[in-house]
């Protein structure tokens, strides 16, 4: 990994459908920090820099127009070359283009495609997010073991490295595909779309996506899921929702795992729920223990409710 900017040298790899172990591809990441012709003015570093809207700072900005200057601000404030590349001597080709495009637009389009495929396959998809070690995989191992008898179930596992989690799921007899994100910190919609193609048909069933253990980055990336479930474990500390609000804001359900440890560590459930609802007044809460099985009946009831929600628009359309 580049220690300057944190950018990735590792590329994501997705298991083949018949894979039993992760495949790691060699990858050469040609990466330089040559900022030629480009100055970084870092005088403002370390403090809040944007006190107001429309505050452009630090960058000395030059328009060297030797000829006439066209009015800026239009859709194409062109003052030189046109889109066909024609240039007029003595006129600069600088222009400002209004584009108004969402940075996440590409991911969101792929996520919409995934969602359409999941709906067409009558598949209920949950995106499980948490910090590392909250117990997502243990929770899934129990859930898929208990659900697999009643409907098709599949799992997509996301980790930086190893296929340990997919191996644990496959040991239950449920199909799983491991995505290794390399240095990546989250799953994106394209990875999930590709992994789903490699799973056996799950029509009418449930797909669990276990995201990379990270309470920050996965919040931003829609994968096409019905909803995000944030898994919180009692030793995490009651104030996690306040420390990592984006994830709790993005999730529909907070699943509090390791509830069997609550008496040992003086876990304050009411305080945790109160903090989570400061961030997301609508978040639902369930308590479970992947170790003892406590609370799983309520989780399955919640899943059935989500299935009913998802099918309602389909049934309405068929009517």
């Amino acid at each position, binding site marked *: 990994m580049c220690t300057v900017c944190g950018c990735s040298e590792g590329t994501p790899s997705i298991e083949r459908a018949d894979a039993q172990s992760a495949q790691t591809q060699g990858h050469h990441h040609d*990466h330089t920090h040559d900022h030629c012709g480009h100055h*970084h003015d870092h005088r403002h570093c370390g403090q809040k820099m944007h006190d107001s809207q429309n505050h452009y700072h630090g960058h000395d900005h030059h328009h060297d127009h030797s000829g006439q200057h066209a009015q800026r601000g239009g859709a194409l404030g062109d003052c030189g070359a046109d889109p066909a590349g024609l240039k007029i001597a003595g006129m600069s080709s600088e222009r400002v283009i209004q584009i108004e495009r969402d940075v996440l637009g590409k991911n969101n389009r792929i996520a919409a495609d995934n969602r359409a495929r999941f709906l067409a396959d009558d598949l209920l998809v949950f995106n499980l997010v948490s910090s590392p070690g909250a117990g997502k995989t243990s929770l899934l191992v129990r859930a898929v073991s208990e659900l697999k008898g009643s409907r098709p179930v599949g799992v997509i596992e996301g980790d930086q490295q190893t296929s340990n989690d997919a191996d644990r799921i496959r040991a239950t007899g449920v199909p799983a595909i491991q995505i290794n994100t390399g240095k990546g910190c989250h799953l994106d919609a394209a990875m999930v779309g590709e992994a789903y193609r490699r799973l056996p048909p799950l029509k009418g069933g449930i797909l669990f996506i276990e995201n990379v253990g990270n309470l*920050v980055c996965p919040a931003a990336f829609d994968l096409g899921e019905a909803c995000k479930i944030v898994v919180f474990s009692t030793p995490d500390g009651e104030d996690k929702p306040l420390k990592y609000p984006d994830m709790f804001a993005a999730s529909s359900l907070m699943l509090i795992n390791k509830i069997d440890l609550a008496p040992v560590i003086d876990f304050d459930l009411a305080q945790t729920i109160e903090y989570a609802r400061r961030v997301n007044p609508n978040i639902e809460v369930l308590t479970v223990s992947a170790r003892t099985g406590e609370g799983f009946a309520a989780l399955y009831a919640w899943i059935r409710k989500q299935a009913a929600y998802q099918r309602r628009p389909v049934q309405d359309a068929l009517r």
Partner: protein
Amino acid sequence: MHEMALCEGIVEIVEEEARRRSFSRVKTVCLEIGALSHVAPEAMKFCFAAVAARTIANGAVIKVVELPGVAWCMACSRSVEIAQRCEPCPCCGSYQLQVTAGEEMRVKELEVD
């Protein structure tokens, strides 16, 4: 870290626009970033320089227009401005807020040659 992925998205947008509109150099990329979005503007500037190297966006300066966070307060039935999530309504102190704006991450405009 996800700022790297987002900056790759920005470079892709710039490259697409360059093909469509025939420009060969980008001087400035102007972003609109909401106060409640998933990124820190400074991190975006930092990552962009690395991601844009050897692309058409190499050397482009990132300008950020910050948009305020806005939420509907269910208790006072009005729109209020908030600086971050988990802040109470500045008028009544309630946490019953529904975010209505401030999650934007948009490429607003490009200054090109």
